[in-house]
């Protein structure tokens, strides 16, 4: 514990920058007798610094508490508005509803639609199709966006080939410096390759190993000992079987968590379907669209709020069910490039 200073005029530090400052103070003899005045002074300084730290801590805590209340107010207000009649909303948009109604939910469920242009035709896509599109989009994209970094991380952490370094380098460099403004080229390429406007094309586009998930998986696979795999190989198991039946179950927790987070992300993603799947609008896109709606009943704010509540339900249910898993977070190391 060389970094701990005996008389604590400055706070003991683990880290170098602070330790560097402390090093100067270390030049005095650490075993020299402390005079009563020095002890008194040190004690007073410490009391003051503790009081200031305590007050600051609670001020910040109070600020965060108030901030959290504003978020609760926002979501509470959305929920309350969803149960209001249109008349009650117009009369008092912030007041407690005199009469609670479920009609908005029924209306949102029945009337939620997106106008789609297909060639020279235009058609309304209603909620059942929106839900189906969302389901295909989030399951398909969620799976491919999880599998790609997973198998890539498995390959680079369990097989010793020189190309592993290239793959690691690609991931780190693209994370540090993504190319700006690649959207026009991406759309042009998607159109050229026939990916534009199809779910299969979308899945291929999302089958990318780039990003932090690769590092999470790599960290997880590095933590899995090779002993079981070696034993299985000696017993004649193929590489594929070792990967699928021995290695994958060992990282199933992290796989499931990343899949879950991906799916939550894709459920709320309205922009990608808007750009690449114009004929397959999703629920999230319909929510984006609803705010510009001018025809009743979708232009009614309580109906819009009811639609928001309905669209948020699936992710909220998933969150409640897997709260501990999601909030447990992901651990990874070796991110430094």
């Amino acid at each position, binding site marked *: 514990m060389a970094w701990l200073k005996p008389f604590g005029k400055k706070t003991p530090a683990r*880290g170098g920058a602070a330790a560097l400052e402390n090093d100067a103070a270390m030049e005095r003899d650490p075993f020299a007798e402390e005079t009563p005045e020095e002890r008194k002074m040190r004690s007073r300084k410490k009391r003051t610094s503790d009081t200031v730290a305590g007050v600051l801590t609670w001020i910040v805590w109070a600020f965060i508490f108030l901030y959290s209340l504003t978020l609760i107010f926002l979501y509470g207000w959305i929920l309350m508005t969803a149960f209001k009649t249109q008349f009650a909303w117009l009369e008092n948009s912030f007041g407690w509803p005199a009469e609670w109604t479920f009609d908005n939910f029924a209306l949102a469920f029945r009337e939620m639609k997106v106008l789609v242009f297909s060639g020279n035709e235009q058609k309304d896509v209603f909620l059942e199709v929106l839900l189906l599109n969302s389901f295909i989009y989030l399951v398909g994209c969620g799976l491919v966006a999880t599998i790609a970094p997973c198998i890539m991380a498995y390959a680079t952490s369990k097989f010793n080939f020189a190309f592993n370094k290239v793959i690691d380098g690609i991931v780190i460099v693209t994370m540090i410096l993504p190319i700006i403004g690649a959207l026009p080229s991406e759309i042009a390429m998607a159109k050229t390759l026939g990916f534009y406007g199809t779910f299969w094309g979308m899945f291929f586009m999302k089958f990318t190993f780039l990003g932090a998930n690769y590092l999470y998986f790599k960290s997880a696979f590095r933590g899995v000992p090779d002993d079981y795999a070696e034993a299985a190989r000696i017993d004649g198991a193929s590489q594929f079987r070792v990967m699928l039946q021995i290695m994958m179950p060992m990282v199933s927790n992290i796989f499931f968590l990343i899949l879950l987070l991906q799916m939550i992300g894709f459920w709320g993603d*309205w922009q990608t379907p808007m750009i690449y799947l114009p004929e397959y609008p999703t629920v999230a896109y319909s*929510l984006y669209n609803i705010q510009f709606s001018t025809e009743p009943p979708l232009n009614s704010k309580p109906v819009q*709020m009811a639609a928001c509540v309905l669209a948020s339900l699936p992710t909220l249910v998933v969150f409640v069910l897997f709260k501990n898993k999601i909030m447990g977070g992901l651990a990874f190391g070796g991110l430094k490039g």
Partner: protein
Amino acid sequence: MKQLYSPTGRPLQHRTIFNNGARRREFYFYVGLIALPLIQFVLMYICVNFRSVLFVFQEYDQASSSYVFSWGSAITNLVDVFTRFSTAPELLISWKNSVLYYVLQLVIITPLSVLTSFFIYKKLPLAGYFRIVLYLPNIVAGMATVLGYKYIVEFGLPALFPNSSLIQDGSLFFNPSAAYGTLVFYSLWTGLGGTLIMIKDVMSRTSLELIEASRMDGVNFLQELWHIVMPVVYPVLTITLYTGVVTVFTGGPPVYMFYGSEAFSSNIYTIQYYLFTLVVGSTASDAYYPFAATSGLLLTLIAAPIVFVLKYLFEKYDPNEDNPKLEKRRRKKYGLA
């Protein structure tokens, strides 16, 4: 490569794909695993960026509805980008808005995220409640939060402050001088929870012995954060900081979510929004693709050195004991080198 020997002293051959069947099978499996993600990377990253470069040398021919290649187009596109980025009023505002947003994120959200994560990590009162409530904007459908905020501002504020000069056309969203601030406030308000889990997770890696030792030395709450926990968070935090530089050009408040492609005033433009609306929405046109792609590439060239210089500096001043540069500086300072 180091030469290995058998117990009898015979030089051992390294297992390569050319002299060992098992190694060869490993290699085939390895190639099978990485092939598809690599093809995806080549098509959707290398080719996409190559397409961006190609756009620099192309112009859109309205008559044939196709892109025409010519060396002269590069000069036209580059001059166009330089002229517009330095003289067009909406782009000058975009520069200002984008940088302002990045700075505000940096000085408000980053410290608050660290503090809140620390409170949760230290299990201060209501830590569990903070953990969930602050993460809510990431769980609830994004558009629900947007619509809730939008209608609170549009209907709530005029009711609360009917005579305010800030509210024009019934809303802050339609006051050119207040609209961007309203959008930034939304992003800051809902953005605190984004990195919460990750930072808290990194904090939980702090050595318990170190915390115990510091407590015995009377370290207070904020000193523990600054001297003990911050060096642990430092690598991850600095990565988010220097990779965040790119968000000046790719991020910003969600203007498109609130206004679609036809924002009422150029006062709320960001660089991201400006480039995005050239490519997506009712204001987009295939003719703008070369300009957008050229701008993106040039902005990447601006961002790249900044990112790498910041990366170098952050790594140089990494206060962790395993930082070789820190050791070097200490040795130099005390004349030990």
